[in-house]
C-alpha cells in the first residue's frame, strides 16, 4: 500500500510540474490547426531567429569541444601550479547567473568597457551584435565537454598510450588512434549537453543582444518577443520548436548513456 502511495505521489508531482505544462504548450501551439502553427514559425523573423540560433550552435559547439578535450587532457594528465584554480574556474559558468555573465561581457567589450573603445575604433562591434552573443553562448556552455571527458580519461589510464609511444607512434598519432577512440562516448555526451545549452541560452544572450528582431534575435529571444507582443500562437509555436530540440537531446543522451556503463 505504502509503495503505491509513494509511486502515485512521485508521479503526480512530476506530472503537475513537468509533463502537464510541457504537454499543454504543445496542445496550445496546435490548437488553431497545424497550418497556423507552421505559419507562425515560418515568418521571416522567426526563420532568421532559427538560423541565428543554428549559427551560434555551429560556432560554440566545435570550439568548446576542442577546448574541452584539450583542457580535460591537461587537467587529468599534467600537473602544474594553479591546476586547482583552473579546475575551479571551469565550473564558473555553472555557478554564475547567466545575467551576470552577460553583464561581465558588456563591462569588458561594451562601449565604455575595457576593450570596447579599442574594438570600436577598429570597426568591431561586439555588444548588441552577433559576436557578443556568440561569446555569451560559448561562455555558458563551456564546462560540459571538459566535465564529461575528464572522468573517462581518468578511467582509461595511460597504459595503452604508453604502449603506442614505445612502439614509435608520435603524440598526434597516439591521440587520434588511441586516446580519442577511447573517450569518444564521453566527448559525444559532452557535445550533446553543450548543444542543448547553446540552443536554449536566454539570459546571457538576451543581455548582450540588444534584441533587434530579424537581426540579433535568437529563437529563445523570439519566444519572449512574440509573447510580449501578445502573439501567443507565435510564442507557443517557437517554444514547440525548441521543445522538440530538447526532446531530441534527451533521446541522444539516452542513446549515449548505456555505452558508458552505469554512471
Amino acid at each position: 500500500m505504502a509503495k503505491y502511495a509513494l509511486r502515485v505521489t512521485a508521479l503526480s508531482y512530476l506530472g503537475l510540474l513537468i509533463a502537464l505544462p510541457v504537454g499543454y504548450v504543445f496542445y496550445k501551439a496546435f490548437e488553431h490547426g497545424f497550418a497556423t502553427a507552421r505559419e507562425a514559425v515560418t515568418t521571416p523573423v522567426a526563420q532568421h531567429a532559427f538560423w541565428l540560433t543554428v549559427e551560434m550552435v555551429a560556432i560554440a559547439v566545435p570550439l568548446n569541444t576542442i577546448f574541452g578535450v584539450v583542457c580535460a587532457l591537461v587537467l587529468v594528465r599534467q600537473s602544474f601550479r594553479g591546476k586547482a584554480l583552473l579546475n575551479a574556474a571551469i565550473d564558473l559558468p555553472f555557478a554564475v547567473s547567466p545575467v551576470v555573465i552577460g553583464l561581465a561581457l558588456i563591462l569588458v567589450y561594451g562601449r565604455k568597457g575595457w576593450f570596447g573603445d579599442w574594438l570600436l575604433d577598429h570597426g568591431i562591434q561586439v555588444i548588441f551584435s552577433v559576436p557578443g552573443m556568440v561569446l555569451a553562448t560559448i561562455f555558458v556552455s563551456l564546462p560540459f565537454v571538459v566535465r564529461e571527458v575528464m572522468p573517462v580519461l581518468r578511467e582509461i589510464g595511460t597504459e595503452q598510450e604508453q604502449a603506442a609511444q614505445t612502439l614509435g607512434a608520435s603524440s598526434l598519432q597516439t591521440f587520434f588512434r588511441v586516446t580519442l577512440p577511447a573517450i569518444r562516448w564521453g566527448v559525444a555526451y559532452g557535445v550533446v549537453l553543450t548543444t542543448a545549452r547553446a540552443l536554449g541560452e536566454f539570459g546571457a544572450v538576451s543581455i548582450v543582444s540588444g534584441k533587434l528582431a530579424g537581426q540579433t534575435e535568437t529563437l529563445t529571444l523570439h519566444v519572449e518577443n512574440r509573447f510580449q507582443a501578445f502573439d501567443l500562437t507565435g510564442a507557443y509555436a517557437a517554444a514547440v520548436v525548441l521543445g522538440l530540440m530538447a526532446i531530441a537531446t534527451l533521446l541522444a543522451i539516452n542513446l549515449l548513456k548505456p555505452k558508458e556503463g552505469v554512471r
Partner: protein
Amino acid sequence: MAAVVSKSTDGGWAGFSHAVSNPQAVGALKLTIVASFVVVAINAVTGTLVAWVLVRDEFPGKGIVNSLIDLPFALPTIVAGLTLLALYGPRGPVGADLAFTRASVVLALLFVTLPFVVRTVQPVLLELDRDMEQAAESLGATRFTVFRRIILPSLRPAIFAGSALGFARAVGEFGSLVLLTGNIPFKTQAASVFIFSQVESDNAAGAAAVSVVLLAISLVVLLVIGWLSTRSG
C-alpha cells in the same frame, strides 16, 4: 568576472554599499535567497522521493519517467517559464492563477532545479547494500525506522550535494522567471531580474554591485559542496 568586481567598486566602498542597500536591491536579494531555500527544502524531500520510486519501484513506463527528469536541463528556461505560465497562469485550464505571485517564483525554480537531487541520490540508492535493511527488518524495525536509521544516513551526503547544486542554480536563475513572475519590484522581482533591469536602464555599477553579492553567495555554496563531498569521502 574581474570587470564585474572592479565595476562594482566604481563609486568606492560607499558606492557599493549604497547600491546594495537600495531597498529594491535588498528586496530582490531577499526574495532570491528565501525562495531558493524554500525550493531546496522542497527538492530535498521530493527529489529523494522521486529517486526512491525510480530505483525501488517497478512500473510500466519507468524508462520514460526517468528520461523526463532530465527535461528541465534540456528545455530552454524561457520555454520552461512559458509552459508554466500557460498552465498555471491567467486563462489557464486549471483556474489557478499563480502568475505574478511569489508562489510563481518558487514554481519556476522548482521546475528548473528538479533534476539535481534526483540525479545525485539515484546512483547512491542503486548501490546501497540491502543486507542491513533486511537485518533491521528481521530484528523487528518498522519500515519507517529502517528508512530513518539505515537508509537516510547513507543518502544524506548525496541529498546535501544535490541541494547545494540546486541552490546555486536557483540563486542565478533568470530565463524561467521573466515571463511568469511579472518582475514586480518588492514583490516578485528576483535578484537576477533586478540586475537585468539595471543593465537595461544603464546603471551598470548598480547591476555589478548586486552581481558581486550573487557571486559571493555562489562561491560560498561551491565551497560548501566541496567541503561536503570531501567529508563524505
